[in-house]
């Protein structure tokens, strides 16, 4: 019976497949997901709604999906310094894109050898990377290694390097490499005289697009969402990520609410001290999310089914 390798990349309905699930189950699944997706989208809409509301009405009436009173005040306040925000966007995009590509390359190159059981030291190097998951190297030694050891301060490289190798992803890649690539393929390539790197590059990688896309997506999110590295290594007037620029004020609020002593002291001395209100915080969240929302649709195309099928047959 002819097999039809179907691709999830194609839009629209799947071609009629005898082996589909029943329409009953399909309906149930669809209903479930529409509800669940609503739960995912509504909070985001709420954030946007509050960011477009008038501050006082939120303080008194709480969060409402449809604002009692519209106001662009929050964005007005935020985008006052639009030059800095644009710069931060640039920093974030650059760090994310470049960082993810390099990280993927480094991690894939590490994961492949350790996925090969015939490689003598695969156990040792597996353990080396696994151990880094267990152990959070302390903040101070990490900071000193970077600042005084490597001289990495106030540079975008300091924002990228920490995420280049993440044990979790390496182990996952390793698992995919050892389980999803049929040995027959690699054997035939070797017989054709290909060296190990060529096998990796031309056979294993193309067949691993789904997992590479997954890891790539999560790497992207890690980079984009990070604000801590900017806090550690970037001067107040330096290249800080957009998340950090938005997050700074939220950190202030958090600090003041958890450290009541400091708050009293500041209030005592400087009543002019104000912290941005609810609407401004939500506006910050909106600005911080930015283009990242489009990453998944972009990477969707790599979730291709049946990559290995044709390869073995053909």
């Amino acid at each position: 019976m002819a097999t039809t390798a179907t691709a999830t990349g194609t839009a629209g309905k799947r071609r009629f497949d005898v082996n589909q699930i029943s329409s009953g189950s399909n309906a149930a699944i669809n209903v479930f997901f529409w509800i669940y997706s609503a739960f995912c989208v509504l909070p985001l809409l709420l954030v946007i709604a509050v960011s477009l509301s008038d501050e006082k009405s939120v303080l008194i009436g709480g969060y409402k999906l449809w604002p009692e009173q519209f106001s662009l005040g929050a964005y007005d306040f935020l985008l006052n310094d639009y030059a800095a925000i644009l710069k931060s966007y640039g920093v974030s995009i650059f760090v994310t894109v470049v960082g993810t590509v390099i990280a993927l390359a480094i991690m894939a190159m590490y994961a492949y050898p350790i996925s090969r059981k015939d490689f003598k030291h695969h156990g040792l190097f597996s353990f080396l990377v696994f151990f880094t998951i267990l152990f959070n190297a302390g903040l101070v030694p990490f900071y000193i290694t970077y600042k005084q050891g490597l001289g990495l301060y106030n540079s975008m490289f300091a924002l990228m390097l920490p995420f280049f190798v993440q044990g979790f992803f390496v182990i996952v890649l390793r698992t995919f490499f050892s389980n999803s690539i049929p040995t027959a393929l690699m054997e035939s390539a070797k017989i054709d005289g290909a060296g190990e790197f060529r096998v990796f590059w031309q056979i294993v990688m193309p067949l691993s697009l789904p997992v590479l896309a997954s890891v790539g997506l999560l790497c992207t999110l890690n980079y984009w969402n990070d604000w801590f590295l900017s806090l550690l290594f970037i001067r107040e007037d330096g290249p800080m990520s957009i998340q950090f620029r938005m997050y700074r004020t939220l950190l202030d609020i958090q600090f003041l609410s958890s450290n009541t002593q400091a708050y009293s002291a500041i209030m005592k001395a400087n009543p002019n001290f104000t912290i941005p209100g609810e609407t401004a915080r939500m506006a910050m969240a909106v600005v911080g999310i930015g283009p990242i929302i489009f990453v998944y649709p972009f990477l969707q195309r790599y979730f291709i089914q049946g990559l290995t099928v044709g390869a073995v047959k053909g």
Partner: protein
Amino acid sequence: MEQVAQAAPGARRSGKRGKVKTLNQGYWRRYWVFYAMMAPGLLVMLVNNYIPMLGTTIAFKNIRLASRSFFTDFWNSPWVGWDNFRYLFTTSDAWLITRNTVAYNAVFIVLNLIIGVAFALMFHNMRNRLAAKVHQTLMFLPYFLSMVIVAYLVYGFLHPDIGIMNRVVLPLFGAEPRMWYQDTTWWPLILPLVNTWKSIGYYAIFYLAAIIGIDQEYYEAAHIDGASKWKQVWSITVPLIRPIIIILTLLQIGRIFYADFGLFFQVTQNSGALYDKTLIIDTYVYQGFLVTGNIGMSAAAGIYQAVVGFVLVFLSNLFVRRISKDDALF
């Protein structure tokens, strides 16, 4: 799928159990590429993880800052043995924070597994591919929101006066408004709910990638044999993604003593009244650090968490080895 050692000039074919004996020359010619490929990764790990690890010896010292160089100060500071660990164990809350941390993480692991696989299966089997794509995208949206914003949203729901629950939902059922942030009852439900909602995308995506890699032939054959869709799932899909399930679970077990700081500190508004059910090791250490500024004590906590995680993973790994050797972590 087994990996069989490749024949190489000068090497003997290996069996599954025996060591591969090679003439050195043949081995290096073959495998030098692997070392070269791993080199960048090793370098990065050295810088990011292993060199700083040396510094965790801070945990055993009482750091005195007298000179301009950290190394000099480190060198000259006195050893204090286990002193910095005491605050983790001598508190009457020691059991509480351990229990909370482990219990919540265990629940998270189970939820991530069940719901993650379930979602992946459902995505894979949905008939309308466009709808599947849309839902996959939307599932990630919560992940984009930082925990701080999620905390505000939760506060928007659970605020005693103007929260949506107390103002809108509960009155619908004729129930009394509650002091959500003073009452511990609901938090063992709220926290897993928020955590799963936010991070399920993370796990579902890996399971989905694994499911996609399964050869359609298996399903066709099973279908011909008359197997129902449900049976196909249990006999084909789940067993074939077992390796990734095991690995993801083992990795999470390794981190079982660490938790998402944002979830337990910010979403709970760090409300002391909830501590019985929400205080975990990380937030406990943080509060202490705020007051004492003692980096030795924070480092001690880090070591404690790492050691326990390691022991647990080691034991779990042994257990997995018993069942299926290939799937073990190491």
